[in-house]
């Protein structure tokens, strides 16, 4: 097994292929492109899984807002296709792109274009929402593809495959991967940007450096998490160019990495070029964008029975939530892989110190394998930077796990490395203790891999469409999360899961108080018949025959207000996941006419 050395493993895999297969041109092509095919295959299978399950998942608040904004942007693209001259008139740009300008436009533009082509023009999708969501799903495919490639090229193909599986089989990630939102896209762009930078440094040359600049621009245009990427690249570049790496050459002809120069120049240019809102009044609008996120409002989020709504945020939030939501087997593998890599980094540092600082150290006994591109450190930075922010007291925690989702590809790659080590040990044991031949030993290892991920697959599949309510068995599952006072949901997306009850228990014209469901989300659910189209959504319990409440601790006030309105604490129906209340549904007593007081 390679010790962090990069492409040797992938190339070794190619050279091990049977000679007669290599002779055949098609087979040779397959072997040459095996990693792209495997990574692409994993990504494709996952996107198909997302598409197959999308209809069952309701629309979150933010999705509703992004549907609306994307609808606006689609108007601009229509204009661009039909009358390009007018599309660039300031009044058109400003009036259309003002929608939801607190977030960059790349993903919303892709949602708009997907809707335009895949729903409007080519009729690929029946649901408009699926067309809007499709770019987000593809970005999950990209995240899996790049995670696979990174894991494969950094460690081994086996590590890459396991890394991709580990990333895809997390209930929270699976939930977010369905959405027309930016969290999974920024996760994809985060790891893609780091991978591109790493490849640029490894391969050298202008092409990859320029590509790194473009990818960083796209990352900036995806979500503001991109502002943190210099925290990954700069320390890494200092290590790479500061003399710690004996073999590194890369783009070293310049005093700083060419890829970083490209990111600092091409990146902002791409960011500006793709966001029409910034084409006029550029600096004030950038300032407004930055201020929105720097001074973002704190929303309510429950953690260990306490609803937080402002600083200081609990430092334990991030580690506890990772432990509670990432499948435990993945975390165990991560611990094995990360420990191994940390040990390798320390061993290399000790060797460097012995040589350069003339320090007498008894460890390590053997010189560790070189890591000329500091891949291990780069991956640790990729993991640590998004997580470290959540140890700061002023960082809002309202987004739950999605706000550090960018750390998960690196976490998964270390898990892949961990599995690779375990599998290698199993192989060695099988070879020394049994008479199994190579093929049978491979089958045993493949079986171990399969059973390792049966459980994360089962729990991820089972969590749908309540991914945010799912907690790992170590924490007692969904009920354990409720016992511990962990957040059960946010964004009101679970409303759609009431559809079977609505179908049986409501009649045309019934007014439903939709509570935490955003209006555009509700309207889309009605349009797509995800809830009975005969229902009339209303904004207060006073107007409604039926009122729903999404269970979150801070939303108890709505529950109690409904009691005040209906004079009763008894819901007619409670939607549950694994026995835990998700939504309560109340019906106005027949004796209480709408808008009139109790008699």
């Amino acid at each position: 097994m390679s010790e962090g050395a990069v492409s040797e493993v992938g190339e070794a895999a190619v050279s091990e292929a049977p000679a007669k297969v290599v002779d055949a041109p098609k087979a040779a092509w397959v072997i040459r492109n095996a990693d792209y095919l495997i990574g692409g295959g994993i990504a494709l299978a996952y996107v198909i899984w997302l598409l197959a399950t999308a209809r069952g998942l309701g629309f979150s608040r933010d999705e509703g807002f992004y549907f609306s904004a994307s609808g606006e942007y689609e108007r601009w693209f229509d204009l661009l296709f039909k009358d390009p001259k007018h599309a660039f008139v300031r009044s058109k740009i400003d009036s259309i792109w003002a929608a939801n300008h607190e977030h960059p436009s790349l993903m919303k533009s892709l949602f708009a274009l997907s809707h335009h082509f895949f729903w409007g023009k080519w009729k690929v999708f029946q649901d408009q929402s699926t067309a809007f969501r499709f770019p987000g799903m593809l970005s999950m495919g990209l995240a899996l593809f790049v995670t696979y490639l990174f894991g494969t090229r950094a460690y081994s193909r086996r590590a890459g495959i396991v890394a991709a599986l580990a990333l895809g089989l997390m209930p929270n990630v699976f939930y977010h991967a369905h959405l027309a939102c930016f969290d999974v896209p920024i996760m994809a762009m985060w790891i893609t940007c780091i991978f591109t930078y790493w490849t640029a440094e490894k391969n050298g040359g202008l092409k990859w450096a320029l590509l790194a600049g473009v990818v960083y621009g796209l990352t900036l245009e995806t979500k503001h998490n991109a502002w943190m990427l210099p925290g990954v690249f700069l320390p890494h570049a200092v290590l790479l160019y500061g003399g710690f790496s004996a073999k590194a050459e890369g783009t070293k002809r310049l005093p700083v990495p060419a890829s970083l120069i490209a990111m600092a120049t091409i990146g902002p240019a791409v960011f500006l070029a793709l966001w029409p809102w910034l084409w006029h009044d550029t600096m004030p609008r950038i300032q407004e964008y930055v201020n929105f996120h720097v001074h973002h409002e704190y929303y309510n989020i429950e953690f260990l029975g306490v609803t937080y709504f402002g600083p200081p945020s609990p430092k334990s939030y991030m580690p506890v939530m990772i432990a509670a939501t990432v499948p435990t087997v993945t975390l165990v593998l991560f611990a094995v892989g990360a420990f191994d890599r940390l040990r390798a980094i320390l061993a290399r540092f000790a060797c460097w110190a012995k040589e350069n600082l003339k320090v007498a150290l008894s460890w390590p006994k053997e010189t560790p394998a070189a890591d000329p591109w500091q891949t291990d450190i780069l991956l640790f930075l990729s993991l640590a930077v998004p997580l470290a922010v959540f140890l700061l007291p002023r960082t809002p925690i309202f987004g739950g796990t999605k706000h550090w989702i960018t750390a998960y590809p690196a976490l998964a790659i270390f898990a892949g490395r961990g599995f690779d080590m375990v599998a290698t040990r199993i192989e060695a044991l099988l070879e020394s203790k049994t008479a199994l031949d190579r093929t049978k030993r491979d089958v045993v290892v493949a079986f171990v891999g399969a059973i390792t991920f049966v459980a994360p697959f089962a729990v991820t599949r089972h969590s749908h469409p309540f991914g945010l309510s799912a907690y790992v068995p170590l924490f007692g599952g969904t009920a354990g999360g409720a016992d511990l006072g962990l957040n059960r949901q946010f964004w009101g997306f679970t409303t759609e899961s009431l559809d079977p009850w609505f179908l049986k228990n409501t009649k045309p014209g019934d007014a439903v108080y939709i509570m935490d469901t955003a209006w555009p989300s509700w309207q889309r659910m009605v349009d797509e018949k995800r809830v009975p189209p005969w229902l009339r959504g209303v904004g207060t319990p006073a107007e409604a025959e039926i009122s729903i409440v999404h269970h979150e601790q801070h939303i108890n006030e709505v529950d109690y207000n409904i009691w005040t309105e209906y004079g009763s604490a008894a819901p007619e129906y409670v939607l549950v996941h694994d026995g835990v209340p998700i939504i309560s549904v109340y019906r106005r007593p027949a004796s209480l006419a709408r808008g009139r007081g109790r008699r």
Partner: protein
Amino acid sequence: MLHVKQTSSDIVPESDWSAARDLVKTDLRPTDLVVFSPFWTDPLGRQAFGDLASLKREGRSDEQRFARAFEVSRRGAHDAVFSTWKKVDEKHAGALTVTTWENPSYKKVIDDLLDLAHPDRLTVTRVDGESETPCPFVHGASAGGSTAVPQGLLTPADKFVCQGGHVGVAVLHGLDHHPHLCLYATPMAGATLRMKFSNVAFGPSLVGHAGIQWLVERTPSPEKVEMAFFAEGHRLGTAAHQVGAGWNRFEAATPELDGKHADLVAEVSPSRQRQFCFEATTRGAGP
């Protein structure tokens, strides 16, 4: 294996809830409390128990007012409040356990101001200096609620309406995140809110609780809402609720009124804190 186990159903079947309800129903008295533990199972319990999980029980001011409690619990959960109560029975209904607790410090409720909050027994006035303006009772529409949070305390449909305030029965979201049924009595800027409850049956004490909606109380401040209680021309006591104190208790000894009927006047002094809610009961010395 744990992951796979998690995918197996952990749902308590409806039949267990029905069986638990039947167990409780046969023995339930008006002075008994029904509680579902852990608290997150409360919606399931309310659904199954219907009217047995009444607003008075669910939105209770305190537990002392109940002689016994039926605690319907899952996975061995128990409310800490019963740690000092005497366990007198335990029955099982499938995955649920019904524990009967006896209250060692039960004090009977004689009159509950919430029951008197209707025009036959309550008059509300706005007092500006010497001037007293009646606040009529209306069967109106509630005010509040939206598709965003926080929303604050819902103004009830049935209420006494004053200029700049109102009095009506509502359910407060307390700082403890629990519901508390109470009189939403809006303090008014520059005027006193006066509530006169007629012909109240007194015992040796007047016990009350007050709070402000969680949304406000979660950010403590020195601001206070002050209340005073009067009967037979005498001040029985005062209570000052400071923002951030949460749902808290006040008590006034009324030995001179014990066994008598008299009008009880409650006054809420001017304050900027609008989402104030209180309840009060006259109580006996024991069961």
